[in-house]
């Protein structure tokens, strides 16, 4: 039902600004699903998630601008670059836990953002990368379709990717690996006593989550055509975390709803722009007070 609504939404409501808003919310959905693997499934608090989004976006941007790789070719390597950075960060970082992990990841996020700003010869510094190619679909001898700056094709691209990631997440959560992640989240010591290689699985979760962010980053870069370091700040990391937490940690459906609501809320509340973050802070406090498991979350026992 909701899939049908999603499929025909742009056709019955061909308002390109609104389609664009929903597309952006769709990118948030992908990001939130990725962070959910790390925070929701495995219980690792991550406060620098925007860094992986940035790595994906810059990886595609550089592959495209320097090597001329088209979007469909660059998408995979961009996701892989982000995933690899997640693993490389995870190997040293996952030795610390809880609050300390949160702070290490926060530091990582800031280091990446400042590095991207300062490495001007490669990243274009504060001005960012300009003129990144939009996706093109080309069937040899038949047709060539450039996504350009239209909103409709991106809507469907994001929809397809988001639904795929969502399905992968649902399957992954129920798999052997997913159950091991849940065991680590609920009680790491008990999990390791049951013979689960907790370190390896935590690094895996971090890598998968980072790769999904990289995917979203590449799509974002291709859609915008321009990326700057400002797009990947701490506020973004917190926003994505808020989507995951408010929707319900570990619940794929909850995370999707959380991301769609919070992703479109700023546009719906345009008139209250100034008070938005204020209200947002209050909501976060109240949620933690009365419903820390989120709207669709598991019982509170499952938090560490």
């Amino acid at each position, binding site marked *: 039902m909701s899939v049908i609504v999603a499929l025909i939404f742009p056709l019955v409501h061909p308002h390109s600004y609104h389609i664009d808003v929903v597309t952006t919310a769709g990118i948030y959905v992908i990001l939130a699903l990725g962070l959910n693997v790390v925070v929701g499934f495995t*219980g690792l*608090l991550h406060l620098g998630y925007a860094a992986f989004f940035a790595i994906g976006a810059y990886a595609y941007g550089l592959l495209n601008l320097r090597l001329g790789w088209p979007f469909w070719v660059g998408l995979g390597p961009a996701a892989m670059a982000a995933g690899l950075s997640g693993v490389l960060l995870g190997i*040293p*970082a996952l*030795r*610390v*836990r*809880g*609050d*300390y*992990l*949160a*702070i*290490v990841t*926060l*530091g*990582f996020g*800031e*280091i990446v953002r*400042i*590095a991207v700003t*300062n490495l001007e010869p490669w990243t274009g510094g504060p001005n960012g990368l300009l003129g990144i190619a939009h996706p093109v679909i080309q069937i040899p001898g038949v047709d060539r379709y450039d996504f350009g700056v239209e909103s409709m094709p991106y809507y469907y691209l994001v929809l397809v990717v988001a639904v795929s990631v969502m399905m992968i997440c649902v399957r992954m959560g129920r798999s052997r690996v997913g159950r091991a992640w849940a065991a680590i989240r609920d009680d790491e010591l008990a999990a390791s006593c049951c013979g689960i290689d907790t370190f390896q699985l935590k690094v895996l979760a971090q890598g998968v989550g980072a790769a999904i962010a990289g995917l979203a980053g590449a799509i974002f870069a291709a859609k915008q055509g321009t990326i700057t370091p400002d797009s990947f700040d*701490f506020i973004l990391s*917190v926003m994505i*975390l*808020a989507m995951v*937490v408010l929707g319900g940690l570990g619940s794929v459906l909850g995370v999707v709803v959380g991301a769609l609501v919070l992703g479109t809320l700023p546009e719906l509340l345009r008139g209250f722009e*100034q*008070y938005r*973050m*204020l209200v*947002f*802070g*209050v*909501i*976060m*406090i109240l*949620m*933690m*007070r009365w419903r*820390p498991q989120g709207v669709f979350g598991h019982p*509170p026992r499952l*938090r*560490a």
Partner: protein
Amino acid sequence: MGLTSSILMSPFHLLLQQLANGFTIGAIYALIALGYTMVYGVIRLINFAHGEVFMVGAYLALTALLILGVAQPLTGVALVGVLTACIALAIGGCGMLGLGIERLAYRPLRPRPAESSGRSGQAPRLAALITAIGVSFFLQNAVMLLYGATDRRFPAFIPARRWEWGGTSLTLLQVVIWLTSGVLMVALQMLVMSTKLGKAMRATAQDPTACRLLGIPVDRIIALTFALGSGFAAVGGMLFGLYYNTVNFHDGYLTGLKAFTAAVLGGIGNIPGAMVGGLVLGILEALGAGYLSSQWKNVFAFVVLVGLLLFKPTGLLGERVADRA
């Protein structure tokens, strides 16, 4: 302090200048770091909103100056009076704010004594951290709405006296910052080590359950710890505003993180450690910015923080283990 003057300076005097500057900002970091470390010591909570309390302190001091109509440097009794008024309003306001944050945001999340038996270490850390982020957002945006999003000029009411020695210059303001921080730190150390309240704080840090059994009002001690830490951050905020001449509602985030780094550097939970950590971080930052690159200045703190947490999580003077969480 700018590049032009440093080119003319001898290497020795340049180094001395960097050390003096680093010592000054380090003293401010240390004041803020005390709040992190005290709260962590007592309830094992990283109060992420502490950086915003510092920022609110700077704005409260600014408010005091605006009310008093201070716009230029003062001398004598007027100077002392204004300084006292600023400190009083900042400490009072932030102390109340600290109490409020603890009461409304954190206390409801703490397990009640009856439930906490056995699993007290499993306090909902994630919930507390997200609450802290919520408090941060709230404070930042409240200040933005009240005072505007642009930089606010902070009236320089300390006379611009300076002493020069072979190119190294030391301003009266720097001396004021050193003295204020020094006096406060000594006072805190005395409070913690030799008053009844300090004793109760140390006891709560060791074993809250046993404290309750002995009739120590643990909740009140925790609230007072928040208030005390917030008061220190407020003074830090005022000195920060004086030192940089502007305040912005964004300042709390970065400076708060640096102060937190200082607390970790010294060993979180350890009060003298926070002082040492603040000074070391300030000097590291000044030397890094002076000799390596000022563009990367803000990265040094994060690199120190990440490296430290990964390789020596107990900090310089710390005794606790990070792997407890």
